[in-house]
C-alpha cells in the first residue's frame, strides 16, 4: 500500500507543477478590465462561438448604462432570469440613486446592484476570464456592466434532477425504495435527511483535471478512524485524470490491488446501505453525476450481505444469508466439481447416478471440460445479450436462449442433460449474489477453477481454492484485512458474518474498523 501511495505521489507532483505554471501564465492576460467593449470581446472570443451561449444586451435601470447578461441555454434557469434578474435590472432605479449617477462617471456601482437590485441568493464576483467561463458553462448567469471591473456571477444553475427511483441493481423486498440519483446535492441530502445523523461530515473535493467534478467524502466524525479518512482523502487527492465520469474511475484509482479479481471498494445505489456503512465507521465517497456511491473499506462478507438481512427478523435474515454463502460456493465450484467428478473421480459419484450419467454422456463427443466451457460461455453470452437488449426483449431473450439452446444442445448430443442442470444451477446461484460487481468476480473465477479441475481433478479444484484463499488472506482494503473477521480471527464478530444474530446482541461496531466510539448500543 505504501508503495502505491508513493508512486502515485511522484507522478502526481510532476504533472501538477506543469499545469500550474501554464494556468498562472494565462491568468495575467485573462483579466477583466473596466472597458466594457473589451471585456465583451474577450468573453466572445472565449465562449462566443458556442451556439448555446446566449448574450442579452440591455440598459441598466433606464439609465443608459450598457450591460449584458450571458448564460447557457438549458443549463441556466430561464425562469429565474426572466422573473427575478431581468425585471429588477431593467425597472427604474430609485430616484436617489439616479441623482448620484453623475459621480460615478457613467459607470455603475456593483455594490449597489448586488445589495439593492438583484433579488437572488447567490451572487459572486469574478475577475479572471478562466473562472468566468467555467462558471458560465456550468449554468451560472454572468452580468457584465459598463464601468465595473468585475463580472457578477449569479447562481442560476438549474439542477437537472430525475425522480427518485428504486435502485435497479439492488432491489429489495423490504426496505426503503430510494436510490441515489445523478445529482450530488440530492445524494448528500439523502444522507443528511435520513434521520439527523450527529456529526455527519461531508467533505468536498474536486476530481478531474479537464472536466472538474465534485466529489464528497462522507463519514461520521466521532465514529470513524481519523487515519482511515486521512488515507481516503490522500488517495483521492492523488487522482490524476482528465475526467472522472463515473465512480468506477474513482474506485479503480484508489483501490489497493488492481490485479485482484475481488473488488476492494463497494459500490451501491442505496442510501440506507451507505448510512449503515457510515455507522460501522466506514467512509463513503459520492461523485457528482452518478448514482453509485462507493464504500470503503470492504470485507468479503459484505459482498454477500444485503440490507434486507437486517430489516427482516434475525432468523430469516440468517437463513437467507447462509443460503447466499451456499449460492456463492455453488456458483464458483459446481462446474469445476462436475468436471472433476466426470473426468477424474467417477468412483466418487453414487453408483446409480454414475450409471445414469454414463448413459446420458455416452453419445457426447467432447470431454467434460469442453462441454462445460461451451455451455458456460454460451450462458454468459446470453446474459450479456440480455442486458444489452431493449428492456422488453431482454427477459424473453434469456428464456428463449436458455431453454432452447440447452434443450437443443442436449438433443444434438453436444452436452449431457446433467451439465444443463449444473449450468442452470450455477447461473441461478450467481444471480442470488446481492452485489453485481461481486457477482462478476465469481463468474470470472469460475473459469480458472474449471481449467484447474480439468488438469488435476479434485486436487486441482482444491489447489485453486488454496490459491484463492491465500490471495484473499493477503488482500487488504484500506488497511482492513479482506477476510476479517474470519482472518484475522475474531470470534465475537462472527455474530454478523455468516449468521445474523439478533440486533440486541450486536452491541459493538466492527473492531476491524478501529472506531473511536466502539459501542453501538447499551
Amino acid at each position, binding site marked *: 500500500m505504501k508503495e502505491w501511495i508513493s*508512486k502515485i505521489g511522484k507522478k502526481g507532483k510532476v504533472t501538477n507543477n506543469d499545469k500550474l505554471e501554464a494556468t498562472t501564465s494565462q491568468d495575467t492576460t485573462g483579466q477583466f478590465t473596466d472597458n466594457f467593449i473589451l471585456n465583451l470581446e474577450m468573453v466572445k472570443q472565449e465562449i462566443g462561438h458556442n451556439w448555446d451561449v446566449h448574450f442579452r444586451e440591455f440598459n441598466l435601470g433606464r439609465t443608459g448604462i450598457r450591460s449584458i447578461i450571458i448564460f447557457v441555454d438549458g443549463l441556466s434557469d430561464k425562469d429565474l432570469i426572466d422573473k427575478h434578474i431581468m425585471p429588477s435590472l431593467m425597472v427604474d432605479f430609485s430616484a436617489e440613486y439616479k441623482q448620484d449617477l453623475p459621480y460615478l462617471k457613467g459607470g455603475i456601482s456593483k455594490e449597489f446592484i448586488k445589495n439593492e437590485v438583484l433579488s437572488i441568493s447567490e451572487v459572486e464576483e469574478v475577475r479572471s476570464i478562466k473562472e468566468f467561463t467555467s462558471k458560465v458553462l456550468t449554468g451560472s448567469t454572468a452580468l457584465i456592466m459598463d464601468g465595473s471591473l468585475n463580472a457578477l456571477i449569479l447562481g442560476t444553475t438549474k439542477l437537472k434532477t430525475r425522480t427518485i427511483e428504486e435502485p435497479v441493481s439492488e432491489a429489495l423486498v423490504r426496505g426503503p425504495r430510494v436510490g441515489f440519483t445523478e445529482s450530488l446535492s440530492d445524494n448528500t441530502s439523502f444522507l443528511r435527511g435520513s434521520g439527523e445523523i450527529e456529526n455527519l461530515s461531508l467533505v468536498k473535493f474536486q476530481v478531474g483535471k479537464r472536466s472538474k467534478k465534485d466529489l464528497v467524502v462522507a463519514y461520521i466524525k466521532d465514529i470513524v478512524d481519523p487515519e482511515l479518512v486521512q488515507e481516503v482523502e490522500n488517495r483521492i487527492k492523488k487522482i490524476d485524470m482528465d475526467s472522472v465520469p463515473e465512480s468506477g474511475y474513482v474506485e479503480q484509482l484508489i483501490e489497493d490491488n*488492481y*490485479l485482484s479479481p475481488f473488488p476492494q471498494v463497494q459500490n451501491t445505489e442505496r442510501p440506507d446501505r451507505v448510512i449503515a456503512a457510515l455507522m460501522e465507521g466506514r467512509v463513503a465517497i459520492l461523485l457528482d453525476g452518478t448514482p453509485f456511491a462507493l464504500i470503503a473499506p470492504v470485507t468479503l462478507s459484505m459482498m454477500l450481505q444485503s440490507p434486507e438481512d437486517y430489516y427482516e427478523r434475525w432468523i430469516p435474515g440468517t437463513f437467507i444469508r447462509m443460503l447466499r454463502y451456499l449460492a456463492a460456493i455453488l456458483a464458483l465450484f459446481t462446474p469445476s466439481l462436475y468436471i472433476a*467428478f*466426470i*473426468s*477424474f473421480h*467417477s*468412483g*466418487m*459419484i453414487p*453408483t446409480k447416478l*454414475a*450409471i*445414469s*450419467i*454414463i*448413459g*446420458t*454422456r*455416452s*453419445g*457426447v463427443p467432447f*470431454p*467434460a*471440460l469442453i462441454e462445460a466451457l461451451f455451455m458456460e460461455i454460451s450462458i454468459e453470452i446470453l446474459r450479456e445479450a440480455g442486458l444489452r437488449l431493449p428492456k422488453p426483449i431482454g427477459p424473453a431473450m434469456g428464456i428463449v436462449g436458455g431453454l432452447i439452446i440447452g434443450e437443443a444442445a442436449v438433443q444434438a448430443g453436444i452436452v449431457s442433460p446433467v451439465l444443463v442442470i449444473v449450468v442452470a444451477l450455477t447461473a441461478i446461484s450467481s444471480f442470488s449474489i446481492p452485489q453485481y460487481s461481486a457477482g462478476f468476480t465469481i463468474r470470472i473465477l469460475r473459469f*480458472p477453477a474449471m*481449467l*484447474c479441475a*480439468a*488438469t*488435476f*481433478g479434485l486436487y486441482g479444484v482444491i489447489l485453486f481454492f488454496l490459491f484463492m484463499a491465500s490471495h484473499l488472506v493477503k488482500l487488504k482494503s484500506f488497511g482492513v484485512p479482506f477476510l476479517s473477521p474470519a482472518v484475522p480471527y475474531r470470534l465475537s464478530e462472527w455474530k454478523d458474518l455468516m449468521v445474523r444474530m439478533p440486533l440486541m446482541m450486536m452491541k459493538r461496531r466492527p473492531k476491524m474498523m478501529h472506531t473511536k466510539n466502539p459501542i453501538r448500543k447499551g
Partner: protein
Amino acid sequence: MKQTHSKIRPLFISLSVFLFLSLTGCWSSHEIEEQSLGIGLAFDKGKQSSIEKKLNEQGGGYSKRNLITATYQFITPLVASSTTKQAGPQQKSYVNVSESGDSFHQMVREISLRSEQPVTAHHMKVVVISESLAKSYKLEQLLDQNFRESEVRPSCLVLISKGRASKTLETKKAGEIPAFRLAGIVENAYRSTRILPPMSHIKVESKIKSGSSFLLQNVLSANGQVKFAGAAVIDGKTHKMTGFLNEEELEGVTWITGKGKGGVVKSFYKETGQLIVYEIETMKSRIIPRVKGNNISFDVNIESVGRLSENWVLSGNTFKNEFLKKAEKSSEKEVKRLVRNVLEKMQKEYKVDVAGFGNRLRIENPKVWKKVKKDWDQTFSETPINYNVKLTINDYGTSGGSKK
C-alpha cells in the same frame, strides 16, 4: 511507466503458468463414459467359458493354469444409455464376462483386451465366492488382490454361494441388475433374522487378520433367481470354509449376538397346537463370561420386545394378559430351541466360535483371553453355555379377541 511494467510482470507470470498448466493436458483423466463400471464379481473353480475356448482355439491365451474363473459384472456405457432411455429397458442391463486363469489381476487386465472400455472397480458392490473355491483356498489368498488394491472399496460385500457363484450374477428379469439385487437383499435385515449383518471387505480382512472364525452369508441361485440361505462358516485357523449353518441355525446365531433388527418367530401354542407368530421389534443380547479358576463359562441373556403379529389360536383372547404371557412363553421356547440348536452345531460339529463369545471374553477378561486365545475355538467347544430368553409382547395389533 517503468513502475507499471513491474506491476504487470506478475500478471504475465501467472498467465503463463496457467497456459503451461493447460499444456500439461489432463493428467490421469478418464472420462466417466469411457469406462465400464464393475459392480459385481464372482469367483468359481476354473471352467473356461465357450467364448474363451473358441478364442484359445484360434491361438489366444497366455501361460496360465485355469484354476479359477472370475466373472465380472459390469455396466458398459452402451448398456447404461439403453437403460436410461425413456422407453425402458428392453434387454439385459448388465454385461457378464468370464475369464479363467490363476491370477486375479491378470484376469481383470485380460478384459481390457476384449472391451474398449476397461473395467473400474470403484463401484464394486459384491464379491461372491463359490463354496468349492472357499473350501480349497484360503480366503485371504482369494481376496488378496481386492484388499491390496485401492480401487475396490472396503465396503464391498463378500458372499458365499453354495452353487456356482457366477449364477448368482444372472437374472432373467429385464432391467434388473443382479449385483444390486444381492447388495439390496442385505439391506433387508430389518425384516428377517436370517440375514447376517453385512460382511464387507474391511470386516472380513479384520477377522482374517485377527484369526477369528466368522460367518459369511450364503446365497443360492436357481433359474436366474437368488435366495439368501444360511451362512458359511469360515474357520479362523485355516481361513477356509468348513461348513454351513442352515437358515434356522443362522437365526439362532442372530439371537445370540442380538444383532437382528427384525423378523418373526413362529411357535405353536402349547394347549391347542395352533400357530402363534411373534414379530421382533427390538432385540438385545448380553454374553457374560464367567471365569472361575481355569473354568470358563458363559451366560447369554437374550431380551426382546415385539408384538403378536399372527394368532391362529381361536380361544386366545389378546385382551387377556394370561394369554399374552402364554404366547410369550411359547415364543421363548422356540427361540431357546433355535439357540440350543446352533450352539450344539457350533460346539459339537464345527468347533468354532462364530457368535462373538471370544470377543466378549477379550473385553471383560483380557488376561484370561490372552491365555486361551491361541486355541480358542477348541476351548470354546468345551465351554458350558447357559442362556436365558425373555420375550415381551407389548402390542397385539389392531385386533383383539372376541368378547365372551
